[in-house]
């Protein structure tokens, strides 16, 4: 492995190599990809809705590979950038809300400790 490969943890060229996670444990990877593909197939939710959810979650977990993949996928599934931006705001609102709602725990503690 060259030194360049160690220059940074994330490399966009690694995204198409996702399938390589099957090395040394193909039976597990096969199960994962079969499940993954089934999850994203049209069902009670449309492929487009699932793609927008995936984009939002990608931002919540801050996975650059997923953001790359689902930005393309959302466009291909017929979403536009305004809809995608709203999806990102949904992720951000949940993240922000999750932090803020824990403020109630802080209140609980301060109520116990305060006069």
């Amino acid at each position, binding site marked *: 492995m060259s030194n360049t490969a160690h220059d940074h943890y994330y490399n966009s060229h690694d995204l198409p190599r996702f399938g390589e996670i099957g090395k040394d444990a193909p039976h597990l990877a096969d199960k994962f990809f079969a499940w993954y593909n089934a999850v994203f197939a*049209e069902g009670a939710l*449309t*492929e*487009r809705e699932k793609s927008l959810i995936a984009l939002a979650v990608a931002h919540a977990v801050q996975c650059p590979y997923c953001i790359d993949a689902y930005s*393309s996928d959302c*466009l*291909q*599934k*017929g979403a*536009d*950038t*305004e*809809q995608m931006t709203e999806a990102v705001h949904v992720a951000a609102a949940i993240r922000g809300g999750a932090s803020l709602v824990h403020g109630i725990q802080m209140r609980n503690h301060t109520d116990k400790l305060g006069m």
Partner: protein
Amino acid sequence: MSRVLPTLQKRASTLSSTREQRGMLGRVPVAFTFESALQDAGLYPLRPTGIDIFQINVGRKCNQTCRHCHVDAGPDRTEMMSDAVMDRCLEVIESTDIPTVDITGGAPELHKRWRELVIRSRAAGKKVMDRCNLTITLLPNYAYLPEFFAEHAVHVVASLPHYRPKGTDAQRGDGVFGESIQALQRLNALGYGDPSTGLELDLVTNPVGTFLPGNQAGLEAEWKRQMERLYGIRFNRLYTITNMPISRYLDFLEESGKLNEYMERLVTAFNPVAAAGVMCRNTLSVGWEGTLYDCDFNQMLDLPVDPRGPRTIFDFDLDALSRREIILGPHCFGCTAGAGSSCGGATA
């Protein structure tokens, strides 16, 4: 995007030359050639299955200058089909049993004999498709179009990249979306898009970018829901069409440094099933100057039909043309990527 941009021809761009375009496409490194892909699929040489659609490109003049236009059409283009070519096209329409006449441009309605072409084609019992940019129907001299379409039961195939404004205006020009919605509402008011009237209104969507179109059936369902919800508009079918690396879209790809990446995307997505259904197998395309082509894309790259047979409308011979070998090039990967693409949408 500004409402009207200069065409490649107006800008004296090197890509206004079809030779330059073919050269540029030929220099893109690809994993395999289109011919070899067809060979592996058992489809080479590619031949017609018949001629079901007589597609007439009446000229390059248009009131819009869409960024992805493979015709490089626009207000500054003057090429228009002559009377002699139009007369011969009408003779062919009236003397053959080709069931469908597909009229395109430019904005085909700008041709002085477009109405006659429609009326006589309908009188000859043909289904007539008009590829309409919608905004033309809002121009004062063309406000008659919706009623005319309905009176002659013209199958309207209208371009709309998205059911929301942003992408449409980015691709087709500022304000185009709003005008397109107005035009569609007028067509709906006349019975277009209502399955009980028989007046067909289909929409065509091209990706606003360098990605491939999504699943046509899935997108159609979503579009129908959204167009009804947002604007009260109904339509019959949605056609998803891949952007072709020709003329202005080729210029965009080259300018943005995305040509190789896009061609790689098309080549990687080659689908033998889509290839079997490509439109050149049941379509014949006539250029404004009377030359015959396998499709509108070959027309725009100046690649006429097989030289071993008839090559112009003046020596039209249905049997000979039905036996022709279809002329291919790297751009053909645009019709065979993913679910395929044609003037009638996906092919697989």
